[in-house]
């Protein structure tokens, strides 16, 4: 199941479907969320999703299996630089960023990455909306309500939406911001150096 919110998801659906017999559905998600046509589109896509899920469910006899190991619980909360972590869904290896930040005294108070504690803040998927001013309004409110002192953006090379958000977040919040561009590698050594340098700014 892929959500067509960006070029990468749309194209990857093609790549993945060519290499697997597993049923695959590309869910189209409207970008102009508040318009009537977008509402119609969303409803139609939800119906298609339901039909797809029912079809797949029939084949699995109602059983579901985890697609990936459960994410390990993060380290015990520490009091440190109160930080908002923002970015797209992170692959399992890159969830190691959380203990890495913690180890340098950076306390992730709000985690907008996926899967993160989205109930504390805006829906990170709203960044794909056009316009996405609502997303930044919610971020501003979240920052105010949680006494946020810094922002860390962890994003992938081809994720343009989050890349462009870096400038906007800096501009709109005036907070120190660390922009971490992640590649395919699991090794976070270079990232660790940057995190350390960022944390030192607060001493």
């Amino acid at each position, binding site marked *: 199941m892929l959500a*067509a919110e*960006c*070029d*990468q998801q*749309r*194209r*990857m659906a*093609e*790549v993945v479907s*060519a290499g697997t017999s597993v049923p695959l559905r*590309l869910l*189209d998600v*409207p*970008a*102009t969320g508040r*318009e*009537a*046509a*977008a509402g*119609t*589109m969303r409803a*139609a896509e939800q119906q*298609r999703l339901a*039909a797809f899920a029912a079809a797949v469910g029939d084949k699995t006899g109602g059983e579901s299996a985890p697609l990936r190991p459960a994410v390990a619980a993060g380290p015990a909360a520490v009091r440190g630089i109160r930080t908002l972590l923002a970015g797209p869904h992170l692959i399992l290896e890159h969830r190691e960023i959380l203990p890495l930040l913690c180890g340098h005294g950076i306390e992730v108070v709000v985690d907008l990455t996926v899967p993160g504690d989205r109930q504390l803040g805006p829906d990170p998927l709203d960044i794909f909306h*056009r*316009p*996405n001013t609502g997303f930044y309004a919610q971020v501003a409110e979240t920052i105010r309500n949680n006494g946020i002192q810094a922002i860390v953006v962890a994003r992938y*090379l*081809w994720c*343009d*939406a989050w*890349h*462009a958000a*870096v*400038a*906007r977040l*800096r*501009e709109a919040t005036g907070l120190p911001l660390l922009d971490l561009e992640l590649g395919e590698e699991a090794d976070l050594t270079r990232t660790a150096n940057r995190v350390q340098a960022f944390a030192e700014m607060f001493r």
Partner: protein
Amino acid sequence: MTGKLTLAEFDRRYGAVAPLRRFVEDGDIRLRRLQYDDSAAAFQLWDFLMSEEERLHRARGRGKKIVGVMKDLGTVAVMAYAFPELVAFYPDGAWWLPCYREMHDGLLDRAAAAGIDDSFCPVRAMLGAFLAGDRFPRPDLLLCSAGAVCDDFSTIVQRLAECGFPVAWWEMPCRRTPDAGEPCVRLANGWPVPAGQVDMVEAELARVLGRLENLAGHKLAGRDWPEAIRAANRVRRLVAGLRAEVFAAPVCPLPALEMMIVEMLAIHYCSDRDETVRILEELTALVRARIAAGTGVLPADAVRVFWVNPVADLRMMNLIEECGGRICGTDYMVGHAFTALDETLPPLAALARAALADPMVGPAGQRADLIAAEIEEYRCAAAVISRIPGASHCATEGKIIADRLRARCGIPVLELEVPPLTDALRPGLVTRISAMLELAGPRKAR
């Protein structure tokens, strides 16, 4: 064989009154490095292309409202030109400004300062141009499609809005194949799409029409619609006709560079629909005369090449010909702009179908099938997939298209990246293109 001209020769022969050199003096220095078709029609084409900004400023001076239409490449412009009070243009075209000025314009630096750095597509020059404010007039209305569009473009336009240029967005769904039993519509190019998607785009275009009517200050009269569609089709048929005649001709009658500009005219008529028609008619007459005389601009044994994606550096179109190639098929992402609109349908329904035929809003594999059909039609012996640096769709589409073309057509496929200025890469590009053409050569001879 008709040779190509340098800028000085081009001006001397055809530009006694208004030489193209005036654009060089204004900063568009890349023109000095291009090779031009030796004809008055080509000279008019170039003069028309390069003078668009002047035309937009004159239109503003005459009291016309300027509409900046973005991303859909060909659909909303048809609607805007239905209103005599409006002139539409695609600011997207600003992506060629760094090339024209050989990177001396500072537009990319301006974009980077606004947070859109060189990891984004060169279309970020558009943001720089808006911020600089000295290229085209500030539009009275900006319209942009969102959804199944290039991420770079969408994020750049979002940034543009954040920088104080309000944008009205409209939704473009991700074109898909209909599910079993789902009502469907067949587009002009044969692609089946769900009827629901056509209805949805039509509803969005109705919303866009409302914006245009507000700007024009009146509703569009019923009689204006058929004329707008007919006029658009006049341009579309001329462009499609030129492509068909040039690509099928035994000897290439018009160079790739001029042909690329011809295709771009279909998008928004370079801000003057009547002049576009006149120039296209002149070029058609030129091409027919050359074909009838059995002459052309390249050797008869030039290798027939299909080219995928537009190039940020115009010089590449000269280069492929210098290496021994000849462009006989293209997908510059604007194929839907020169496919005739269905005049039997209500106008918005016809435009919705045209918008959904945009090769970029659906699967890359579907796009590859259309490319393969044209490769077969024009007997192309090789294909070049030209990547756009930083463009998000280029991260994955190239492999999808290349694999499909190799499997279906069995021709050499070369993927290369073309930045706004290729001079430093020229030796490598020549080697790679020459190797591809050499591989394709035996096939060409069959």
